[in-house]
């Protein structure tokens, strides 16, 4: 079998990366992913429903995320919602993307002579 190489998935789109990161701390349904991304980016990245689910569909087909079969307490759960979690592959790809971004950032800092935090 061909060895899994996360590099082949890079670069991710902003939306893909944000969805993977949002799932890093546990499974969520679509709406929760959208809210988490918006909260974490101070509302800079807002994933609307159609975009969010095209991203989810793509990540599912690439097996970077998977549908979770476990459901929270039925009383709390809306039966329409499906839950997604980060796959092992997805985690590796997200880490690889984070590294790539870090390198990009480091190069930019060096060339642009930026010290300390940007902003």
């Amino acid at each position, binding site marked *: 079998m061909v060895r899994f190489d996360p590099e082949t998935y890079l670069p991710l789109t902003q939306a893909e990366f944000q969805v993977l990161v949002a799932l890093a701390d546990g499974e969520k349904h679509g*709406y929760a992913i959208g809210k988490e991304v918006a909260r974490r980016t101070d509302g800079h990245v807002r994933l*609307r*429903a*159609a975009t969010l*689910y095209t991203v989810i*569909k793509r990540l599912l087909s690439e097996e970077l995320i998977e549908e979770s079969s476990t459901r929270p307490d039925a009383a709390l759960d*809306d039966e*329409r*919602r499906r839950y997604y979690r980060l796959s092992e592959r997805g985690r590796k790809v997200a880490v690889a993307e984070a590294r790539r971004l870090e390198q990009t950032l480091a190069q930019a800092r060096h060339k642009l002579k930026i010290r300390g935090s940007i902003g």
Partner: protein
Amino acid sequence: MTDRLLRALLKLLPAEFRGDYQREIEAMFRAERRETGGVYGVARLWAATIADVFRTAPGEHLDILGRDLRYTFRILARRPVLTLTAIVTLALGIGANTAIFSVVNGVLLAPLPYPATDRIVLLQEDNGDDEPGTTGYFSFDRLRSQQTTFDWMAAIGSWSATISGDGRDAERLVGARVSWEFFRTLGVAPSLGRDFERQDDHPERRRQVLLSDAFWRRRFNGDPAVAGKPVTINGATYEVIGVLPASLHELVTTGLFPGTEVWTLLGYAPELPYACRTCRHIHVVGRVKSGVDMRRAQADLTRVYQQLAREFPNDYGHSSSVLTPIRSYFLGPAERPLLILWGAVGLLLLMTCATIANLLLIRASEREEEIAIRRALGISAARLLRQLLTESLVLATLGGIAGALIALWGTRLIASNGPDAIPRLGEIVVNVRVLLYAAATTLATGVVFGMAPARMLIEHRESLTANITRRSTAAPAAWTYRAALITVNVALSALLLVGSGLLVRSFLHLLAVEPGFNPRNVLTFQIDLAGERYAKPEAVTQFYDDLSNRLAALSGAESVGASTQLPLTGSRDKWGVTIEGRPLANPAEAPEADRYGVTAGYLSTLRIPLLRGRTLTPADGQDAPPVVVIGRRMAEELWPHEDPIGRRVRLAGGPDNPMRTIVGIVDDVRHYGLHLPTTIQVYMPRAQSPWLETSMTMVVRVKDGVDPLSLAGAARAQVRAIDALQPVTDVRTYDAIVADSIATRRFTLVLLALFAVTALVLAVVGLYAALSYVVSQRQREIGVRVALGAAAADIRKLVVTQGMAPAVAGLAIGLLIALAGARAIESLLFAIAPTDATTFATVLVVLMACAFAACLLPASRAARIDPSVMLRGE
């Protein structure tokens, strides 16, 4: 409300995607909506959602299309023979269709090159006994001055113009003499210089010419200062006053006198002898006033003619002027053949669809399992339909591209080889309209032939899903579809075969028609003497006598003659016949004969048989007693109970014309077409003609085994030797003239026959493919039958019966439709009925034989099935 709006919006996304995520998207939207307050907030949420859907939908659709295309190409590559067969079939169907459409488009649909064409009409004098035709100048002058419903009315006469005197070779041109209003009537203005003016349209001042753009470029190198320059035409000096626009593919003059390049003024006056009331030799066009309908314009013409008849009852009798829109006059004759061909390629395209659908059905049956599995995996019917339609559209597009190439080639072929009788063929181009037609045809074809297999696959999903593992035995429903397609194909090809069969039989009848003369081994060419030198009849006679002697002396030549007009060339020269001792109350009612002014050698050179009396001889010269030889029909009609020889007749017009003695009777010739009845004909010695007769067509019979055209060079040299300034034109063999006279028929026939043969091939291939497939599917069943003792003959019979049933049904349907519809081509038929039994019987036998042959191969393959091999394989 909100839900419905959202659902409508989400319809933009692919069905597959909606199936997976619609409910979640709706839930998410509702949650967001709950958390959003205020009208402004809700509006913003909607705006963002709408923008979001519009942004994502195209990508999702493209994604599916990409997957479907990849999948399609894999499937197509898996069966290369089938795929290639389908593409070639489609290319033929779409290509033939587009090529014929480009002809229909260029000839019939493209607008005529004049403003408000529908108001331009041709006015033809109708004197009751003949087809409406030319008009006399006197009548034209009356019409022009007394009509009230036309903006303009103009006259056109033929003019052969030989240009010389500019240091270059003399060149003979097709010209036209037109009254000053001609180009105003058409609504065309010169692109250089000026138009003709009223005061110049006069016998003394008429020497002005307008040039065609092509001629101006060729002879004057496109000289921008050409207007005002003198030019020598027919030995006289004319002034060039302007050049007509290049865009003018002038239909009126070129329709009447093909290839017209120079126009001069008519310059008639009513008092001139050739402007007499019965000298009918000009064509009249008019532009009807805007808002006046054709009936009123026609009534206006009739009124003027009634007035003329009251004034000159002897000259006009019952004549009138008939108005025909130029569109139908010039395009009408081409309309029916082209529409029939268009209909034929339409049928061919339908057959293409049916054949491909059949091929796809075969493949679809092979894919039943695959489809069933995909259905079982929860792929929706809509999604599957989309995939299957993508497949047929890809196939159609590939076929369409190949078809467009065929169309480009075919269009060029038709444009350069089509008959002259179809106007504007040379102007045909493959333009945007043609390409759109090809694209639309391709798209429609793809959907039509893709639908049947797709529906079959999807309808049968239940039974299929239930039987995934079963080796299916050609589901009966699938066979029903295929049988129906075979029936359609056989019916359509029967229809096309009957149509082309009728044309072939007509054509054979036509070829068998005796023209009344022998056109084999004859060279013809035309000479039109121009210049002061030929102002006297003696000089003209001297020229033609000299030339005839020189030509007869050429090695290879057998005999030589000349005539003012030749049969089957489309010429028309009718003279009224008055019989001595039979005065007519109304000279306008005198019978009209086709008149040939001939040299002594003409009748014998064309081998027109002499029936009685004597033929014309060199002794019948200018000063000898006037004589004529008449045709058989003229003798029979005008002297039914007497011997015409020795009787005397006066030809054309006034008492100053001499009485001429009939000295012989010859057989009739077909003057106007092999398919038309013979006419009344009269031959006079050209030297005894009341006119100068400077324009003659020479006929040279060559010895057996000599190519007539091989004498053309020597003939030109002899003309040059007598007078280098006289150009030789229209050099053709008489066989070519006869062939040209039936060219439109041959054109229609060849194309229709081509389509019919293609149709037959499609039908046979379709039947063969379908039946072969059935045999391969029924192998097990057939094996069991053989094992149970069925003989090879039984098996053959079984398979042949299965194949022949839909073919026979198709044949019956096709022949019935042909029987009902053959009247559509009745006008193209000759000497046979549209229900010609021989044709129908032949088509029946041919199609049955072909269908049987197509069944026989799969049948004998079935008969060879070895049950032990079969059953061991299970």
